[in-house]
């Protein structure tokens, strides 16, 4: 009886491992294909049996610089804008989420869920008036402008997520620190932040990815002076010429690599990302 039960468990586990391996393979296959192409390994369907071109080469990566001379500059711009916007988003959201998590007023639940609605608002719905405002404020086509607009896009989601962590945060320790005469900044910095740091780090990584991949914001709010990687990629693809696949693949892998490295290096931190933390409290 016990033996058959454990055999059954064993089989079930084996099935799960097989299905998981298949799933990972299916989801990674397009990217592996692209990675191979970026190394100039492409299929040759006319051969029997179908074969691959060999040997691999890094020539396509050098080709990016010729096809898109500003690519290195665009990577730097994307990096700068993403880091600035992420830092701003986290700072603003942490303060706001703390304030909301330690408030008790009617309608708090509605406020927090309203943030979720703002987070799901398509950028298309407001980017046109935002552009007019930017022209007026002379923020159009500036690094600061793109960083500010990106911050506005991602802040609602960040507040929503951080609210979840902070609601379960150290309210009592904060209270006793307060009685010991600590200021609100000291409490936030020395008491609250260390305890919720893993959640904040996970949120920061997700926000960074969202910033890195923003397209409509940098596209509409700039006019060629400030160019991020997604804008460059769409530009030299759609308007100028039919881009060569090998170069496109190399550019794609180059722009994806920083994110993959970040996420894998920080996989322990990013595991803490919890969109549903708020729901366990309400």
């Amino acid at each position, binding site marked *: 009886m016990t033996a058959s039960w454990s055999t059954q468990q064993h089989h079930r586990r084996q099935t799960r491992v097989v299905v998981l391996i298949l799933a990972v393979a299916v989801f990674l296959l397009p990217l592996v294909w692209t990675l191979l192409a970026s190394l100039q390994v492409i299929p040759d369907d006319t051969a029997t049996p179908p074969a691959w071109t060999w040997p691999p080469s890094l020539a396509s990566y050098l080709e990016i610089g010729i096809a898109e001379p500003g690519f290195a500059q665009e990577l730097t711009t994307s990096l700068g804008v993403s880091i600035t916007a992420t830092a701003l988003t986290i700072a603003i959201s942490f303060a706001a989420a703390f304030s909301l998590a*330690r408030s008790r007023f009617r309608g708090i639940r509605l406020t927090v869920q309203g943030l979720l609605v703002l987070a799901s608002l398509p950028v298309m719905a407001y980017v046109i008036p935002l552009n007019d405002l930017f022209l007026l404020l002379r923020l159009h086509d500036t690094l600061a402008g793109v960083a500010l607009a990106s911050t506005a896009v991602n*802040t609602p989601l960040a507040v929503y997520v951080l609210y979840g962590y902070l609601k379960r945060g150290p309210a009592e320790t904060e209270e006793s620190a307060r009685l010991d005469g600590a200021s609100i900044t000291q409490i936030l910095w020395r008491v609250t932040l260390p305890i919720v740091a893993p959640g904040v780090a996970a949120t920061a990584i997700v926000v960074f990815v969202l910033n890195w991949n923003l397209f409509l914001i940098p596209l509409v709010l700039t006019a060629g002076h400030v160019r991020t990687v997604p804008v460059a990629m769409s530009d030299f693809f759609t308007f100028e010429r039919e881009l060569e696949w090998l170069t496109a693949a190399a550019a794609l892998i180059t722009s994806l690599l920083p994110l993959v490295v970040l996420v894998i290096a920080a*996989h322990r931190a990013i595991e803490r990302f919890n969109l549903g933390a708020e729901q366990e409290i309400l």
Partner: protein
Amino acid sequence: MPTRRERLLLLTPLALILLPFLIWPAVFGLLASFTNYAPAQLQVHWVGLANYASIVGDSQFQVAFRNTVVFGLTVPAELAIGFALAYLLREPFRGRGLVRVILLIPWLVSPIANGVMWHFLYNSQIGLINFGLAWLGLAGLPSPLGAKGLALPAAMLTDIWRKSPLVCFLALPGLLAIPRDHWELATLEGASSRERILRIALPRLRPLLLTIALLLIGDTLGLFDTLVILTGGGPGSATLIPALYSYQQAFQVHNWPIGSTLA
């Protein structure tokens, strides 16, 4: 408990970033859709619902609207696939954390890059599908993106590929939050996997899945970057959706009020 003044002070930066750069443009865009507004124009007339009337009568918009409804089917598909993946990752094993982030990698591909990538993967000479067909000794097919009936499903598949992993990543913490004895009890009572999913996992996960669904719907409504690259709305208008159409109206034809009404 911070004082009222401190709480307001801590909320000020949020108000300073959201009011001018998100809430005001959104409200203004909504109001502008009732006028004949255009940038650098002094006189603005209230035209009521005329813009709405003109897009509802616009056959292109009708196509775009229908395409969005069809494209919306990606949301339940992404939820189902993402949930299934999360369910597979439910029980701990060595390296689960790593498998979890490796499965997230498709989402890291930007929508633009996703469009570029699939444009080529669907392509006849260097693509994935025809390589498989060639192995089977079959002739290659032309890219589905060029075929009227296939372009929209093909575009939908690329979106499902990119976002199902995100659903898995977001749903897993919810599954892990379900106490272990809930599962064990159900197993002892002889519940099948299907029963355990329906009776334990889904009811507990419903709020989280609704949250994820809301974010996915918003994302899908605004999705135009992948399509701009993949098909540009074509062939004909087979993959035209309102976000893409309003982008074209506002930035290529410079019809601002129509653009914002569409949005």
